[in-house]
């Protein structure tokens, strides 16, 4: 691996690190259920990117498998969350006095 590529990867990591931070920030700040789910979804994507950078660094193709499985599976948790939010929405539709939206699932 050339030094230039190494630097590029280092920069790439830096960008991913910032992505993690931003994603986590959105996760915490919310303010609503979907915001957090979107943040988590994005974080999973960032993790896939990290795995791929890893595959490049280590030269081990096994990390591609990690990324591959994540790419295929990670949406499942998002789907599950989405269904959860839908349920919450349906529930709120039936509630006479639903809780405030930022505590929609409480």
């Amino acid at each position, binding site marked *: 691996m050339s030094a230039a590529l190494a630097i590029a990867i280092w920069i790439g990591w830096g960008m991913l690190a910032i992505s993690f931070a931003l994603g986590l920030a959105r996760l915490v700040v919310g303010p609503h259920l979907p915001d957090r789910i979107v943040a988590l979804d994005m974080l999973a994507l960032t993790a896939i990117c990290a795995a791929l950078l890893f595959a490049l660094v280590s030269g081990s193709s096994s990390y591609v498998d990690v990324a591959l499985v994540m790419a295929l599976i990670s949406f*499942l948790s998002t789907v599950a969350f989405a269904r959860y939010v839908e349920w919450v929405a349906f529930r709120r539709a039936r509630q006479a006095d639903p809780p405030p939206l930022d505590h929609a699932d409480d």
Partner: protein
Amino acid sequence: MNSLILRAATRVLAPMMLMLSLFLLWRGHNLPGGGFIGGLVATSAIALQGIAFGPEVARRTLVLPPAVLAGVGLVVAVIATLPAGLVELPFFTGLWLKLDLGDGAILPLSTPLLFDIGVFLVVIGGVCAILLALEEDPETDQAGEP
């Protein structure tokens, strides 16, 4: 989930995931994968079907009731521990049958592989049993009703 888009996608995705799971199971002895990972991927496929089409469809994919499937997997795993007794080796010793397919291609059949298949089935059956039981609960339809 009542989404046309999800359902259409699931028709493609679930088989893809099941294929991937078999692939991971098969090559797990040499590369990342194996019975667990394969089983978990297959479970994800079933879970996706359950979410998209409801538990009945997922159940039909499994052919057997999930708990029974896990039982079958357990039987397979236990069987894998036994052949060593026939050749006077200790419990669970791995036995290998390397079928020569000609041309240097070798199909390695072994009790560890059989065991891994058992693991695969148990993981699918076990986790799906819980998932589908949760999906199937009559409350699901009224979910959100406190």
